């Protein structure tokens, strides 16, 4: 058990993040200070939340490219609503953004489930549609900081026991997702459906339905992040979080979630996101152009995929060994 833990991808990632932190702090000791680490965590919170939703989708052998567009659309809707009704309680805004995101996720899920369209095509399409809708409802205008109510903007930054609410929400999502994946039939179904769809059918699981729920959860989390994002940066426009969906997928891949489905964990998604978050926050500190960030993220993805491929290969050898072992 200990050996398995030590060789697990999560442990590997923790080690990689640790090495990264040590390297950076040799030159800039303040980077590894608890307060700065808390900042990095808070900064990475949206990526972590989205990566958890994406992980569930990828587990079922699908992919959700519409998360960033979903985030932007939900963010725009709640921002405009806030402008129209400044007195709306934050709880209602939160509930609304979850629901709106979930509905968009359901649209993806239904198209995949009922019409059997490949997920990459579905979400590529809905991604464009969602961005288009933002333009239509906003007329291309921005919702700026001074138009938003103070309470609307303050919520994600509010301090609760030393951490901003945004961080606490990420922690809550991590905990809930961990419980959900480990202890519910649907969470188990995600693994089964992605691990072997044929066998899942023969076991009485509905593959399409499981995928539908994965998309719904991913959409709800994207919607939730939409409000938090818009409130934190105090601005909403058509292109917010443009291209962010790829960063989300990257976090999952780095976190060891197999693109082929069936393998992955909440911890992996979170650590993959944190890995990217540390790099993103460290670059300006060590005075490297942020443009390098793309190259570094890309390299990290390639290394992660190579490590993945290697580990599955060595697993294959074990099967062979067992199979040929005299009974």
């Amino acid at each position, binding site marked *: 058990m200990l050996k398995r833990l030590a060789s697990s991808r999560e442990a590997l990632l923790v080690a990689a993040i640790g090495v990264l932190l040590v390297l950076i702090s040799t030159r800039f000791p303040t980077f590894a200070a608890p307060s700065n680490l808390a900042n990095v965590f808070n900064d990475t919170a949206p990526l972590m939340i989205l990566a958890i939703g994406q992980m569930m989708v990828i587990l079922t052998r699908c992919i959700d490219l519409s998360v960033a567009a979903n985030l932007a659309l939900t963010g725009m809707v709640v921002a405009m609503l806030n402008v129209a009704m400044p007195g709306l309680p934050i709880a209602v805004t939160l509930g609304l953004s979850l629901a709106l995101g979930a509905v968009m996720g359901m649209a993806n899920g239904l198209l995949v489930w009922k019409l059997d369209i490949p997920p990459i095509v579905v979400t590529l399409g809905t991604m464009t549609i969602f961005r288009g809708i933002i333009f239509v409802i906003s007329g291309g205008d921005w919702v700026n900081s001074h138009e938003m109510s103070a309470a609307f903007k303050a919520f994600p930054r509010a301090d609760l026991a030393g951490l901003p609410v945004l961080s606490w929400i990420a922690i809550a999502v991590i905990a809930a997702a961990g419980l959900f994946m480990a202890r519910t039939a649907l969470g188990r179904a995600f693994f089964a459906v992605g691990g*072997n769809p*044929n*066998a899942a059918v023969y076991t009485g699981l509905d593959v399409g339905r499981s995928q539908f729920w994965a998309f719904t959860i991913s959409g709800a989390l994207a919607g939730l992040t939409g409000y938090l994002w818009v409130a934190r940066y105090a601005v909403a426009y058509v292109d917010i979080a443009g291209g962010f969906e790829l960063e989300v997928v990257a976090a999952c891949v780095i976190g060891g979630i197999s693109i082929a489905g069936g393998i992955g964990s909440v911890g992996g998604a979170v650590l993959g996101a944190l890995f990217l978050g540390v790099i993103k926050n460290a670059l300006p500190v060590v005075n490297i152009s942020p443009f390098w960030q793309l190259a570094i993220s890309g390299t990290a993805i390639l290394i992660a995929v190579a490590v993945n491929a290697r580990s599955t290969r060595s697993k294959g050898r074990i099967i062979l060994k067992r199979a040929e072992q005299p009974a």
Partner: protein
Amino acid sequence: MAGAAPTPPGDMMQMHAKDVAPKADPAEAAPLLALDGIVKTFPGVRALSEVELRLYPGQVTALVGENGAGKSTIVKILTGIYQPDAGEIRLDGRPVHFPTAQDATRAGITAIHQETVLFDELSVAENIFVGHAPRTRMGLIDWPEIRRRAREILDGIGARIDPDVKLRELGIASKHLVAIARALSVDARVVIMDEPTAALSQKEIEELYELVETLKAQGKAILFISHKFDEIFRIADRYTVFRDGQFVGGGPISEVDHDGLVRMMVGRSVDAIFPARTSAPGDEVLSVEGFCHPTEFDGISFTLRRGEILGFYGLVGAGRSEFMQALFGITKASAGTIRIGGMEIRIASPADAVRNGIVYVPEDRGKQGAITALPIFQNVTLPSLARTSRKGFLRLAEEFSLARRYTERLDLRAASLDTEVGMLSGGNQQKVVVAKWLATKPRVIILDEPTKGIDIGSKAAVHEFMAELAAEGLAVIMVSSEIPEILGMSDRVIVMREGRMVAELEGDDLSPETLVRHAAGIAEGDTHA
């Protein structure tokens, strides 16, 4: 029944005096391929320890042994996929090495695998020559030549297949012929056939035997790996037995009998292959009436009682699996009623079937059975999660105890129930699948080809277990293409042909001849079986 081989192998082997027929006696001819003292170790396991193997031109050598005896390892060594740790391979008496698969192919050694790897979207001719297509002087692919030679090779093995047709349009047996043609397209001198008849129907198997005779006549040395004794004695000239990675014995097939071979394989003799059953079927559990499907089957009606084993026999493609899939809710039937314990039920999905106590252990257990990335206990409890959870949350302790109960019952050996199923051997993976279904406490269990591709020892264990299940009152439907299994296990047999029920046989009506006759659609009295 015995095919008129060009040279009856039995007679040939008796001639031991060298001077009587110095040239015509292949047994005395030098082996084409000889392996000696081959050792292959994997971390922690010795897969082969100093085994020997001889292949003679124009002869079929059967390699027999239980699963894990080292048969696949030796094939991989012969085809250059593995390198032996020690030992010598001699081709025509000269030592050779095969560092890569290509070297083995170039030396004229070719293998037709259990699951042949072909390309569905390419034409037959392309499939035959992919990787070694003849070129024009310009270095481009010579299409007319490919077609001409593909035609030639296909004709040579008596296959009536159009080389221009796409592979995906062919049936499984024809695909097999294409695989053989591909193997022959490289001027093979040694042909390895690894369970070539596993997926074929009786008629197709006969055609394969004829093909083997053709290859023999061409002077090729054939290594034939099979679990089926009747076919070993039918087509092999020589035999070699491996057990636990060791060479146990070998020689002319005429010098050994059925029992002797089994004794060598298992180290003991297997007397009763099929368990004795006292069949006392109880109340009716399942009744199916007028079950139809627009394209696959038509008018299937039968009843099944507690403790009964109902066999479904037919050629491959007779619609047996298709019917079972509809009964289990994977595909939709167009008409028909199902009653469980007298109550009419509707099955629209596998979940409905499981809820009503019908479970299905599919034929392709690799693809359709276990979820290899999940641990054993999660595989076992997958269809029973509703029972192991409370207030929507799974209880791991409950899951473990359920999984333990059923894996112990099946004598599944694994380090822990936390082990990923992918780490288990094929036989153990199958036990996981069966345990999964038994844990749902079914009333009817459908076993599709339950012993396909497993060794004789495990086969007996499966049969034993099936008999136990029936004795406990479970109703069993067994789909099988193996006549001895159908005859040995079933209380009653339904024969299907071209999607229709053509016979329901019981008691004295059950004989290999009647089964084959009904399955193949041969009228009574016609002896050309």
